[in-house]
């Protein structure tokens, strides 16, 4: 029977009209939005952590630094879920999906039958595979437990190596520098943020981190991690050893979709969904980081988006559909990152851009990068430039064709270029 937290005990079995697998941003919003839209059926949410749904972005920022306590990360208070009659089954992982029988089985023996299944598991952090990858002191950052383990070790750490110059790695590097640690970032590509941003933004963040004392190694790959039981150093491919007491690996995620794929869901990277977030299995939806969908803002390419925005907006689509109103996913992508005292806001998707325009002087710490494809605005990265972010959003939504010379003039507000 459910205990006081609304979490059913081990071995619980039952039938729910909707079973949501994953209790992150996507799963939690799907459950909340179902009730918001008046869905009266039974709803259960299965999560593999012992926690109620919480915000993940602070795990590499203000939670890691100790500024924000866990209680303030909760997406909703415990009573919220009870009031809405959402059964939360914590601390267990769905291992098998039987799509024909409409049934899932968890690693603790829990069996749940569903009317509809919403797969919202996100992903697990990609780990290194080199020798020493499993030494003590090697961390990834995805869950509050990950962040807690990392924080607990920090007092004994003077030197840390961050493997991967993506958002997670750079945010963690900023927190560690603020805590007075010696930080080296090792990035295999020739620039940071190579997967998600254009060169001007990469160059800016490289300079920013170096100014803050980060030892940044570009085009550097990890040969092995050295140490007896705990990591003592990172050996690079060129033979150099970076002595350290702690390693943070931020090299992306692997979508957590094995049970769905084993059940027959189509997909190669994640699971494929249509514009209604439906997988190829009957009555099974997928949302968030693991859902490969055709995205208008990526020139109709099939992509996965790892962002709160995407998880949230796809959850909203599924909740509407299950509550009886048709809906399709067509949201403008947006994202943010905070490093040191700088706020980056991005709108649209820069992947596939063929030109960039820099608005403003990066040296002032306030500028934007506008991304164009075939003359049309497809994305903006805005650093401490909220006005550009807000006004640029309309250009992205309209895929506006704008003269790059006008975009480059920060004195011209973007809203005045919308119809130019």
């Amino acid at each position, binding site marked *: 029977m459910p205990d006081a937290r609304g979490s059913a005990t081990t071995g619980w079995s039952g039938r729910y009209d909707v079973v949501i697998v994953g209790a992150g941003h996507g799963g939690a919003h799907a459950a*909340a939005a179902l009730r918001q839209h008046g869905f009266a059926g039974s709803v259960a949410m299965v999560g593999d952590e012992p926690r109620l749904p919480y915000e993940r972005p602070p795990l590499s920022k203000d939670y890691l630094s100790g500024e924000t306590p866990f209680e303030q990360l909760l997406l*909703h208070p415990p009573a919220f879920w009870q009031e809405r009659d959402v059964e939360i089954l914590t601390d267990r992982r769905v291992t098998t999906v039987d799509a024909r029988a409409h049934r899932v089985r968890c690693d603790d023996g829990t069996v749940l039958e569903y009317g509809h299944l919403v797969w919202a598991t996100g992903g697990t952090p990609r780990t290194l595979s080199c020798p020493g990858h499993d030494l003590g002191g090697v961390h990834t950052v995805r869950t509050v437990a990950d962040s807690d383990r990392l924080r607990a070790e920090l007092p004994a750490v003077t030197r840390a190596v961050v493997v991967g110059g993506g958002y997670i790695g750079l945010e963690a590097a900023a927190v560690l520098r603020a805590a007075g640690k010696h930080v080296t970032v090792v990035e295999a590509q020739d620039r940071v943020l190579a997967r998600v941003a254009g060169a001007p933004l990469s160059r800016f963040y490289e300079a920013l981190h170096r100014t803050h004392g980060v030892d940044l190694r570009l085009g550097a790959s990890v040969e092995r991690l050295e140490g007896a039981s705990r990591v003592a150093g990172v050996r690079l491919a060129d033979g150099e050893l970076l002595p350290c007491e702690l390693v943070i690996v931020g090299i992306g995620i692997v979508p957590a979709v094995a049970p769905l794929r084993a059940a027959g869901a189509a997909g190669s990277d994640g699971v494929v969904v249509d514009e209604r977030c439906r997988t190829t299995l009957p009555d099974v939806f997928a949302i968030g980081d693991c859902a490969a969908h055709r995205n208008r803002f990526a020139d109709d390419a099939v992509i996965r988006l790892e962002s709160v925005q995407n998880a949230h907006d796809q959850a909203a689509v599924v909740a509407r559909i299950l509550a009886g109103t048709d809906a399709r996913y067509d949201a403008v992508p947006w994202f943010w990152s905070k490093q040191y005292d700088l706020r980056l806001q991005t709108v649209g998707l820069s992947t596939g851009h063929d030109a960039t325009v820099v608005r403003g002087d990066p040296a002032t710490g306030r500028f934007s990068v506008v991304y164009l494809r075939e003359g049309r605005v497809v994305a903006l990265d805005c650093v401490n430039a909220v006005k550009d972010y*807000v006004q640029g959003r309309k250009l992205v939504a309209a895929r506006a064709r704008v003269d790059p010379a006008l975009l480059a003039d920060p004195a011209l507000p973007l809203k005045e270029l919308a119809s130019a």
Partner: protein
Amino acid sequence: MPELHVTTREGDTKTIPGRSGASTMEVIREGGVDELMALCGGELCCATCHVYVDPAFTDRLPPMSEDEDDLLDGSEFREPTSRLSCQLPFGEDLAELRVTIAPED
């Protein structure tokens, strides 16, 4: 602890307890009102904690920063009483504050 009165988009008003040191956004979220998305968690990176503040309290609110002003400009539902609730520290001076959650953009 001073209380806060939140009116949802459906027109229901809920009275919730404040918490010292919290923003109005956090108080609303901790009070279990799910319409307020606050997707960026109070980082002033989105405008999904948009509320209308009862004009009787206008004089007691902190001034609006340029960034907050710009973010609100992105909402098609902006009104003269619009604020981002993450930018309003809640405390004794805002006791009995009345806010209404703005429509979702």
